[in-house]
């Protein structure tokens, strides 16, 4: 398990990556289109030399972040788009997923399968936990009225989780 940086904040930390190149996508807030971001991120990660296992981790994390942005951030309003910004440098790949919402209010606690089985916890609600568990850095930044974003980073030097 790699060292991780995670959290929910109202102040951006991860902007301004020096000497990086970037790719930007704008997706409609329509479920299914998260696969465009997922597959783009996977292509970039493979080009950078990430292992298949890390690429799979990133694919799930990016898909979950986009789904959260579409469902919770933009309330599935297809007039609002989800932004995906991939920034690459020599050793890491950062993915920011932006939406028009207020950002998540809840924490990223691990799901309790026993509570789910007993009906004491919703079966859904695992997306943020999975993102946090699968990438090296994860944070959720709330900055209304401009919107909010999830930021994820994987490092080439870190082994798979």
């Amino acid at each position: 398990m790699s060292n991780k940086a995670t959290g929910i904040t109202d102040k951006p930390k991860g902007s301004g990556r020096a000497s990086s190149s970037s790719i930007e996508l704008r997706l409609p807030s329509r479920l299914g289109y998260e696969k465009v971001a997922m597959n783009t991120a996977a292509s970039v990660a493979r080009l950078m030399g990430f292992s298949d296992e890390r690429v799979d981790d990133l694919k799930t994390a990016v898909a979950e972040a986009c789904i959260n942005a579409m469902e919770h951030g933009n309330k599935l309003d297809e007039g609002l788009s989800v932004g995906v910004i991939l920034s690459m440098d020599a050793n890491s790949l950062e993915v920011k997923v932006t939406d028009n919402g207020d950002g998540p209010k809840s924490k990223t606690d691990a799901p309790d399968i026993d509570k789910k089985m007993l009906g004491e916890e919703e079966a859904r609600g695992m997306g943020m936990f999975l993102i946090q568990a699968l990438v090296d850095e994860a944070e959720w930044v709330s900055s209304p009225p401009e919107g909010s974003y999830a930021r994820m980073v994987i490092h080439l030097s870190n082994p798979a989780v």
Partner: protein
Amino acid sequence: MPELVTRVTVEELPAASGDPITVMRFSGDITSASQPAVIGTYEGLPDSVKRILLDFSKVEYLNSSGIALVIQMMIAASKKGQKINSFGLSPHFKKVFTMVGITKYTTLHEDEATACAAFE
């Protein structure tokens, strides 16, 4: 890019001993749109079913909403006293299922033969 339709086929396999095994073979995507396919198909099984085998080998995309449907199905199966085994998950989704704790309620097997044998 629309989501791929979830397809579920159901078949019954004879067991070496005991109750037959009902196999639910999934293909396509398993997402929030899959409730009718996943839960609907499960609810259509007769109450006499005691052993259920989930085949994920043809699933192309699975997200947390799809995993939640699998959990919903396991909750219902637990209440009916049914046993669920699974096979066909990629190494990545085996890891994800383990992370969210599903492996406390279903065992993940490499292939169909091993999963069927585990019911005995």
